[in-house]
């Protein structure tokens, strides 16, 4: 035994200590990874020894390696061993390693609870100290719960060293285990008056942080803090207190009035910049909450700002503060315009951007031209493309605020090289030229020059490049050609051979507008008494130049060019016969383009006697089987539609309702980059307003006649669905809305339009009362799902959509049900071998997809995710997570939601119509393998049963004879699936055939499941 110890110790003399390791790494710069891997092997050996000193040394080295980015999680247990050493030297290293390496999912943390408790109650204050320090880094909810009491006791420890640590740790404990706040709070409050200044400031710190999260609970402490603020001389504490007041004043305006004076005193007296900044910030907050202007105080802010604006860091903060003042006191900021303009010259881009933001906010009618002029000066010397682009956008934004007279500025802007805002400038030019009649002549003149100098712009031909403006220039010159002074020169400029190097869409506009110009030129020439040869020369010019465009590889250009070429040739012929053609040619392009406001359509009254909801033609009635098919489809669409509105509901919408909807739509559009599509939330509000109770659903009896009109089927179905929903205790409004939406769309499109017929299926979700796991089940091409999730977010609906043989499109509607702003959503799914989420090029296989929008409270939006699926024979479940940041007024938390996506086999089937002769041929071919299924105790009418299969499993009825029907469906990979359904005495037998037996088996299982659920 002794020998072993001796041997271990001798070995140890040759062990590397931390210094050796660091030195070694520095000496092995070329093969660092190799060196470290040998070191790690050594460390592993060392960790196996019994000697705790060796272990501690090894752990110390590991901590260093962890910092370098090597994974040391495998040594977590050894770290715990070292932590529990009785010697402070090792304990200290152990806790350090733990605080660096452990996080919430480290499982050995569970083992540490008792050790930490022991250390907390150690007679040695430094043992307690390291334990507290370590705990502050890796405290988990479990640890917080188990140790809250011990830490609370330490808050009254005799040593201030322990007290202050304990007080600060309590904040972490509150975060992890909020229940501990109530019992601990009185003691925490006591600590505000602790004799030790360190403990006092710790308590201020903690209460300040707590108050920022939830200010209104701490209003009662205001007098105490006020006393502290006026008495304390410790700047660190003062800053915290002032910050706390900043959080409290919005709730209690009287407090603000009281604060202004001591704060202004501090502003004038303090030399500490940080304190000054905090005071200024709080004063701004106070001013905002008071809302009544206090000009002399805001003046003092500016004094302090300009006093210190010379150092670069303060400039940034000053600008930040200014932008806050700007919101409430724009006038007081105006006087600092020159100072802000100076900031545009700053070297730091972030300062320039801040200054730009400020200037943008300051613009008024009076100073617009001045600011724009200054900005234009800056455009020339601006460095950095991002900044210059930002500058450009801002200028354009500013200009468009005032609407008028800025074509020249736009033209000026085009002289800049290397910007990617060509498109924006172009659209602005078009906008102004169309909207403002008075400016057209001027605009046309400018554009003509631009066209003439086109060669200066064509250097940059990439897509958003500046040559985009030529698009606008050509169009404006063509459309408003009557304003041109020398149309002939412009026409020539437009037909230069160089034009052929421009992007296709611009060439197309060139060609088209050359024709318009031609018309104008002709009219000018024929009106004059000059000889007709001039006019013929013009035609000849076009005939000479246009063939260049006819050869273009761009189809649009080619088509337009050859059209116009033929036209011109014809005109020339007429000209040679001395026919006056100008009038007729001009007539080709007659008609003035007037700007129409986006809402203009609404102002047009509906003519009397016109009912937009009435059928224009009676819906066609077909043969019996067709009728059946449509019925089932109709039912499918309305299946879960519990809240049924009658058609003329549009007329019920009152003015208030409209305003409300408009509001919602605006909010939605603001957040939705693709707002053209239907906005679900506006419908939601609408529905809330109208109310569900008025709908006479309840009275409908179950015993409906066999041949029911569509409507009754729907109602019956709804009733049943509602019962089901009640049973499951899932009152999910959203679901109903979604159904509503689907139904309405269906109703609009009419029964004929085939592509819209894909039934919107409602699917039950298996949430199993678990907030964490959501099962997104996936049964049909268009699935609607609603999920009530834990506090913040509702992933509401999933719509699957099948396109080609290996792709599934999943649409997820995210709805924010909480009161906070949600952003940075990332959607990720754990790929299986068979199904993969398609990620953009360059993304790793485990990267999440960023959801391209943010969600303000109550807003919903849709995102689409594409999955590639290889094998469709088996159903699958994919696990996924959605991470997002919930941003409230005073904090932001990172949240995670786990969910499951359930792709059933039926989700790979597409409702495909099949004719009976093709169907019988298919069956005769003998390629299909059979399988059958018996369902007992099905007591619903046969047509309901068929509808259910059609609806849930995407079949279509081929033929139906009495109580026997044949059905057909096709998978996305082209497998045929045929069913023969028979019913007798509540027993349904299904004989099925498919060329893929595995798929067939799974689909039949799913059909069985559907019927066992009802």
């Amino acid at each position, binding site marked *: 035994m002794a020998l072993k110890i001796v041997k271990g110790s001798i070995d140890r003399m040759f062990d590397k200590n931390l210094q050796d390791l660091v030195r070694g790494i520095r000496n092995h710069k070329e093969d660092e990874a190799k060196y470290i891997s040998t070191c790690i092997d050594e460390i592993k050996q060392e960790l196996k020894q019994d000697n705790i000193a060796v272990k501690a040394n090894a752990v110390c080295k590991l901590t260093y390696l962890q910092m370098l980015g090597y994974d040391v999680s495998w040594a977590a247990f050894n770290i715990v061993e070292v932590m529990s050493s009785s*010697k402070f030297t090792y304990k200290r290293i152990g806790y350090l390693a733990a605080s660096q390496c452990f996080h919430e999912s480290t499982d050995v943390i569970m083992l540490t609870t008792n050790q930490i408790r022991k250390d907390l109650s150690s007679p040695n204050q430094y043992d307690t100290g390291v334990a507290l320090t370590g705990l502050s880094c890796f405290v988990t909810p479990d640890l917080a719960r188990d140790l809250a009491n011990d830490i609370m006791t330490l808050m009254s420890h005799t040593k201030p060293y322990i007290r202050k640590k304990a007080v600060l740790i309590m904040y972490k404990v509150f975060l992890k285990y909020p229940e501990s706040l109530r019992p601990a709070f009185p003691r925490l409050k006591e600590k505000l008056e602790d004799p030790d200044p360190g403990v006092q400031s710790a308590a201020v710190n903690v209460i300040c942080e707590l108050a920022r999260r939830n200010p209104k609970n701490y209003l009662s402490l205001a007098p105490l803090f006020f006393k502290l603020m006026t008495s304390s001389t410790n700047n660190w504490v003062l800053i915290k207190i002032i*910050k706390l007041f900043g959080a409290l004043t919005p709730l209690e305006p009287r407090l603000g009035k009281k604060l202004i004076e001591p704060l202004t005193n501090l502003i004038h007296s303090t030399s500490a910049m940080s304190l000054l900044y905090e005071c200024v910030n709080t004063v701004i907050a106070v001013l905002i909450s008071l809302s009544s202007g206090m000009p002399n105080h805001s003046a003092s802010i500016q004094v302090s700002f300009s006093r210190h604006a010379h150092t670069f860091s303060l400039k940034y903060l000053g600008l930040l503060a200014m932008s806050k003042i700007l919101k409430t006191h724009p006038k007081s900021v105006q006087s600092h315009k020159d100072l802000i303009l100076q900031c545009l010259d700053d070297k730091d881009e972030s300062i320039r951007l801040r200054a730009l933001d400020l200037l943008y906010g300051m613009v008024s009618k009076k100073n617009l031209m001045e600011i724009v002029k200054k900005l234009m000066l800056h455009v020339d010397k601006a460095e950095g493309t991002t900044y210059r682009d930002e500058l450009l956008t801002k200028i354009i934004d500013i200009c468009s605020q005032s609407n008028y007279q800025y074509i020249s500025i736009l033209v000026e802007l085009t002289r800049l090289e290397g910007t990617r805002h060509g498109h924006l400038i172009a659209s602005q030019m078009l906008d102004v030229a169309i909207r403002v009649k008075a400016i057209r002549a001027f605009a046309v003149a400018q554009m003509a020059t631009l066209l003439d100098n086109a060669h200066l712009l064509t250097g940059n031909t990439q897509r958003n490049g500046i040559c985009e403006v030529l698009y606008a220039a050509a169009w404006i010159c063509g459309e408003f050609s009557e304003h041109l002074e020398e149309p002939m020169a412009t026409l020539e400029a437009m037909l230069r051979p160089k034009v052929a190097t421009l992007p296709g869409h611009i060439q197309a506009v060139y060609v088209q507008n050359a024709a318009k110009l031609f018309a104008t030129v002709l009219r000018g020439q024929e009106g004059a008494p000059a000889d007709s040869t001039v006019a013929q020369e013009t035609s000849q010019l076009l005939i000479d130049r246009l063939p260049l465009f006819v050869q273009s590889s761009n189809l649009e250009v080619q088509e337009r060019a050859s059209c116009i070429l033929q036209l011109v040739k014809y005109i020339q012929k007429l000209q040679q016969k001395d026919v006056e053609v100008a009038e007729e040619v001009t007539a080709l392009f007659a008609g003035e383009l007037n700007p129409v406001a986006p809402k203009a359509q609404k102002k047009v009254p509906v003519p009397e006697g016109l009912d937009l909801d009435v059928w224009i033609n009676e819906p066609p009635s077909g043969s019996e089987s067709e009728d059946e098919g449509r019925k089932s489809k109709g039912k499918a669409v309305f299946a879960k539609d519990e809240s049924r509105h009658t058609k003329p509901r549009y007329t019920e919408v009152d003015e208030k309702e409209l305003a409300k909807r408009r509001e919602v739509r605006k909010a939605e559009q603001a957040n939705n980059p693709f707002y053209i599509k239907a906005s679900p939330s506006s419908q939601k509000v609408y529905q809330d307003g109208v109310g569900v109770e008025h709908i006479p659903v309840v009275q409908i009896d179950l015993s409906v006649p066999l041949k029911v009109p569509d409507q009754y089927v729907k109602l019956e179905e709804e009733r049943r669905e509602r019962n089901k929903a009640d049973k499951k205790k899932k009152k999910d409004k959203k679901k109903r809305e979604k159904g509503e939406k689907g139904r309405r769309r269906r109703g609009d499109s009419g029964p004929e339009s085939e592509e819209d017929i894909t039934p919107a299926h409602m699917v039950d979700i298996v949430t199993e009362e678990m907030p964490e796991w959501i099962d997104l089940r996936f049964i049909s091409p268009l699935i609607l799902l609603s999920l009530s999730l834990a506090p913040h977010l509702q992933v509401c609906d999933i719509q699957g959509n099948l396109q080609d043989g290996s792709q599934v499109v999943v649409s997820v509607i995210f709805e924010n049900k909480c009161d906070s702003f949600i952003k940075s959503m990332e959607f990720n799914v754990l790929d299986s071998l068979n199904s993969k989420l398609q990620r953009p090029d360059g993304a790793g296989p485990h990267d999440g997809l960023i959801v391209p929008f943010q969600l303000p409270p109550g807003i919903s939006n849709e995102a689409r995710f594409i999955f590639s699926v290889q094998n469709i024979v088996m159903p699958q479940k994919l696990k996924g997570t959605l991470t997002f940041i919930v941003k409230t007024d005073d904090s932001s938390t990172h949240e995670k939601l786990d969910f499951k996506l359930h792709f059933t086999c039926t989700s790979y089937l597409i409702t495909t119509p099949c004719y009976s002769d093709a169907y019988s041929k298919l069956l005769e071919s003998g390629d299909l393998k059979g399988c059958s299924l018996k369902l007992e105790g099905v007591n619903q009418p046969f047509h309901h049963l068929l509808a259910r299969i059609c609806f849930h499993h995407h079949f279509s009825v081929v033929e139906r004879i009495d109580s026997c029907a044949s059905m057909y469906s096709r998978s996305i990979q082209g497998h045929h699936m045929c069913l023969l359904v028979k019913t007798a005495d509540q027993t349904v037998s299904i004989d099925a055939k498919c060329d893929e037996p595995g798929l067939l088996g799974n689909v039949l299982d799913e059909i069985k499941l559907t019927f066992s659920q009802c």
Partner: protein
Amino acid sequence: MMRFMLLFSRQGKLRLQKWYTATAERDKKKMVRELMQVVLARKPKMSSFLEWRDLKIVYKRYASLYFCCAVEEQDNELITLEVIHRFVELLDKYFGSVCELDIIFNFEKAYFILDEFLIGGEIQDTSKKSVLKAIEQADLLQEEDESPRSVLEEMGLA
């Protein structure tokens, strides 16, 4: 509350990292890499503050080392700058005109100092003196631990 503090060299080598919220290793690495790139790209005469993700970054360069802190949105940038400065002062006092190598070779000591100064992302003690006193005493305790062992004792022969 401070979220984390990083010390890294001009060459982009991490010298110290302290996370005040438990973070998974993978995320840590990603954030460190990203942030280093951003900070190192900045020119000397630029503001010490920048907005990054939902955090505010406050950094300052001392000789070859960058001290970089991430604080939450409502926090005071200037006081964070002072925290950094105070930490540098503490290191300076402890090591006696500190240089990068001191921190590399005694990185655990640097952590101990930081832990006495900040805890859970909050300033623990605003007095330099009391922080240094606490460190000294803890070090003394450590030496007591180590000193009584003679060479023979250590070899298990005594």
